[in-house]
C-alpha cells in the first residue's frame, strides 16, 4: 500500500492546481457568461513569465510580479476580445478565446522555443517524510496555498461589496446594471483575477512538471471536465470536482491502466453528463427538451 498515499497526494496537488484554473473559468463565466478556452494557456503564460522573472530576482518576488502581470493580461483580453464581442452569441465568444489560445501558444514558441524547460520551485525542493512515505514538498505547499486562496475568494465573494456586485452581475446582468453596478469596471477586475489565478497555477504546477508552450490545451480539457461536473457558476462545486477528478485520475492510473490516463477525466464527465445533462450543481440555462 506504499503507493496509495503518494498517489493520493499527487492527485490532491494536481487537483488543487486544476481547481485554480477552473475557478478562473467560473469567474469569467460569471462576469460575462462566456467560456474561456484560453484559461489553460494563461497558466502556461504565467509559468513562462515566472521562469523569466526568476532569472532576475528572488523567487517570491518573481511570484508576486507574475501574478500582477497576468492580472493585467487577463484584463487586456477582456478589453480586446470580450468587449467588442459582447452581443455576439456565446459560441462565437468561445471560439474567439480559441484564437487567444493559439496566439499565446505561438507567441510563447517564438519567445521561448518549443523545447520543454524546467522551472525553479519557489516553494521548496525534494521530499519530506509524512506518515513514513516521502512526499514532494512542492505538492504539500500547492495544496496549502490553494486552500488559502479559495478561503480568501469565498470571503471576497460572500462578505465584500465587490463580491456581492459580481454575484449580482452573474445573476442578472441587465438588472444589476440598472442598480448601478459598474459592469465594465467589474468585468476588467474579474478577468484580471482569473488571470492572477492562472498565474498562481503556473507558478505551482511549473516546477513539478516540465513546461512547454503547447501544454495549455491538455490542462483546459481536464479542467472542463471538472467545470462541467461542478457547474459553471459555483466556485466550491468546481473546486471540489477538480480535486476529486485529480485523485480519481491518479488512482485509476496507478491501479487500473496507465494507457488511458488522459481519458479518465473525460470518461467520468461523459458518464455524468449522460446521467444529468446539466451537470451536478444547480442547472443554469436548463434547455427543456
Amino acid at each position, binding site marked *: 500500500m506504499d503507493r496509495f498515499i503518494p498517489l493520493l497526494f499527487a492527485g490532491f496537488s494536481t487537483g488543487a492546481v486544476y481547481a485554480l484554473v477552473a475557478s478562473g473559468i467560473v469567474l469569467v463565466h460569471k462576469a460575462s457568461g462566456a467560456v474561456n478556452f484560453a484559461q489553460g494557456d494563461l497558466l502556461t503564460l504565467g509559468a513562462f513569465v515566472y521562469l523569466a522573472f526568476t532569472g532576475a530576482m528572488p523567487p517570491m518576488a518573481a511570484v508576486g510580479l507574475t501574478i500582477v502581470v497576468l492580472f493585467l493580461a487577463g484584463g487586456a483580453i477582456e478589453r480586446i476580445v470580450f468587449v467588442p464581442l459582447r452581443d455576439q452569441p456565446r459560441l*462565437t465568444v468561445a471560439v474567439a478565446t480559441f*484564437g487567444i489560445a493559439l496566439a499565446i501558444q505561438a507567441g510563447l514558441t517564438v519567445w521561448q522555443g518549443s523545447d520543454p524547460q524546467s522551472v525553479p520551485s519557489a516553494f521548496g525542493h525534494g521530499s519530506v517524510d509524512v506518515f513514513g512515505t516521502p512526499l514532494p514538498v512542492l505538492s504539500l505547499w500547492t495544496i496549502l496555498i490553494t486552500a488559502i486562496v479559495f478561503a480568501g475568494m469565498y470571503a471576497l465573494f460572500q462578505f465584500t461589496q465587490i463580491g456581492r456586485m459580481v454575484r449580482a452581475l452573474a445573476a442578472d446582468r441587465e438588472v444589476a446594471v440598472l442598480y448601478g453596478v459598474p459592469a465594465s469596471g467589474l468585468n476588467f477586475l474579474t478577468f484580471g483575477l482569473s488571470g492572477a489565478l492562472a498565474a498562481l497555477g503556473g507558478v505551482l504546477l511549473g516546477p513539478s512538471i516540465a513546461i512547454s508552450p503547447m501544454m495549455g490545451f491538455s490542462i483546459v480539457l481536464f479542467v472542463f471536465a471538472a467545470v462541467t461536473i461542478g457547474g459553471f457558476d459555483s466556485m466550491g462545486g468546481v473546486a471540489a470536482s477538480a480535486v476529486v477528478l485529480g485523485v480519481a485520475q491518479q488512482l485509476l492510473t496507478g491501479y487500473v491502466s496507465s494507457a488511458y490516463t488522459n481519458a479518465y477525466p473525460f470518461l467520468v464527465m461523459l458518464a455524468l453528463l449522460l446521467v444529468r445533462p446539466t451537470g451536478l450543481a444547480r442547472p443554469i440555462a436548463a434547455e427543456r427538451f
Partner: protein
Amino acid sequence: MTSTRASTGTRANTALGSGLVCYLVVGYVIAAGGDGYLLTVASLAAVNVVLAVGFSIVYAQSGQFSFATAGLAAAGAFGYAWFAKHMPAEIALVAAVAATTVLGLAIRLATIRLSRLYFAIASVAVGGLITIVLVNWESLSGGASGVGPVPAVTFGMVDGEELAGVFLIAWLLSAVAVAAGSLLYRSAWARDLLVVKDLRHIGQNDGLPIRRLELEAYAVHAAFTGLAGVMLASTGTFISIASFDISMALQVLIMVVLGGSGRVLGPVIGAAVITPLPEILHGAGKWSGMVYGITLLIVLVALPDGVLGLWDRFRAWARARLVRPGTVRVEGGSP
C-alpha cells in the same frame, strides 16, 4: 399569379452549374500542370473543402459546435484503410463514410439532451476519446506509427500510383460534396436548421422536430468528415493518428468563420484561403502559429459574417451607388 420566385430556382441552378464547371476546370489545370508539391497542397485543399462544407452545415447553419471533427475524420480514414484491405477501394470508401455517419449519429444521440455549450465541451471529450481509442487499437490504426501504403480511390479511371490522377479523383469527390452541399443549403431543410439555431422554442411550438433536425445535421457533418478522412488516406497513401489532432478542428473552424455562412461558397472560399496559408507563411517561419491565432481573432471581431458577408455588403453598397438615376426601384421587388 406566377411568382417571380420560381425563376430564381432556375437561375440558382445555372449559378451552381457554372460554379461547378469553374471548380472542375481549376482541378483539371492543377492536375495537368502541377508538380508533386502543388498536387499535394491541392489534395489537402480538396480534403479541407469537404471538411469545411460539412462543418459549416452543422455549425453555421444548425448552431451545433462540434470538436469531434478530428476524431470522426480519423474514424473515416482508418476505417477506409481497414476496409480497403478486404474489398475494392470504392466500396471501402462507401463503407467508411457510412461507418463514420453511424458513429456521428451515435455520438449525437448520446448527447442529445445536452445544451449547446455542454455539447461543445462533450464533443471535445468525444474527439479526444476517439483518438485515444484509435491509438490503442493497434490492428486498425497501427498505433502511433500509422498505417500504409493505403490503396488510392480511382474508380478505375486513373492509375492508383500516379499522383495527378489520384488528386483528380479527390478533386471530383470534393466537387460532388460541394454540389451536395449547395443542394442542402438551398433546401427547405437548411431553412428549418436556421430556425433550430436561432428560434429554438418557436420552432418547437410550430411543430418542428428539433431533435431530428439536429441529428440529421450532425449525421451530414459526420458523413462529410468521414469522406474527408477517406480522401486524406487515399491521396496521402499513409496515415497516422498524428494527422488528426485538435488543430484540425480549429482549422476547419477558421475556414467556416472566414468564408461566411449561408451558402456553400463560404466554406469553399475558406478552404481555398486557409489551406495554402501555411505554405505561404513558410517565409514567416516561426511566426506562422501567431498569424493563425490572430487571423481567427480579427475575422471574428471584424468580419462576423466572413468574406461572403463582406461581399454581400459590398454588392448592396455598389448597387445603391450604381443604380442609374431615373430607374424606379420597386420596394423589395427583384428587377
